[in-house]
């Protein structure tokens, strides 16, 4: 007598690639850009299943490091790096995009026409490897 096989056709199949988060792609699970690399690290990928193809967003909770941008230097490597253990926030200075006047352009920040007294604090800043300080005023 042949084996009795009972199959359940219901339910969904998994998405194709291990460790990749799925998304609904026309009724089936496809691979999204998000990869669960380890219990403490996630990243977005440009090639699901390809080791090292991590670019865009890296959340490395094990090392307390968070990156956003061209993290794998696929193009110019322009990215923001937050290192929580060292208390550092870095914009990759070798490839930061400045406009033709070598100016950093910000939108949406509020400015004021007056300020308080000297706060007695200076903001530490490194530009092209040279350390500077900017005097901070009270609100």
């Amino acid at each position, binding site marked *: 007598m042949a084996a009795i096989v009972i199959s359940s056709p219901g*339910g969904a199949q*998994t998405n194709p690639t291990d460790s990749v988060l799925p998304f609904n792609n026309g009724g089936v699970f496809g691979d999204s850009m998000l990869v669960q690399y380890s219990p403490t690290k*996630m990243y977005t990928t440009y090639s699901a299943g390809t080791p090292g193809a991590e670019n865009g967003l890296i959340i490395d909770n094990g090392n307390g490091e968070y990156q956003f941008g061209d993290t794998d230097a696929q193009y110019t490597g322009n990215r923001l790096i937050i290192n*929580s253990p060292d*208390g*550092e926030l870095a914009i990759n200075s070798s490839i930061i995009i400045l406009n033709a006047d070598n100016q950093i352009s*910000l939108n949406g920040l*509020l400015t004021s026409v007056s300020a308080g007294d000297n706060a007695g604090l200076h903001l530490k800043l490194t530009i092209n490897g040279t350390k500077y300080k900017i005097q901070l005023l009270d609100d």
Partner: protein
Amino acid sequence: MAAISITSQGANLNPTSDILPYRKGNQFLDSPLQSESGSDIRSNFGNVPSGLKGINLDPSTKQYSLGDWNNVDNGTAIIINDNGPQININGLITTTTGLHTPSGTYLNLIINGVSYHLNLLT
């Protein structure tokens, strides 16, 4: 008599509600990404309060954060608040010590289309 084999062609849900799944083998397990309202996403490593770090994207409050935004460790994070609008950078180090003199160099900055210069001290 041959063995009776029962198979299921479908995959089960991941274990925990409000958590996005990822594929591990042929199962869906919990990833660190959560969505409580369906329109927000935040990361929580281990699904514990101390694991709330990484990203927090909440269009309902117009706040978008990257880093240790919940101040679990050292609180180094960038928080974009489109309500303000403000961009808050947390965790940068300030100093009060040392002699600070003008370097002769200014940082060029454009805020909302207006040019400013910040006096850089050594």
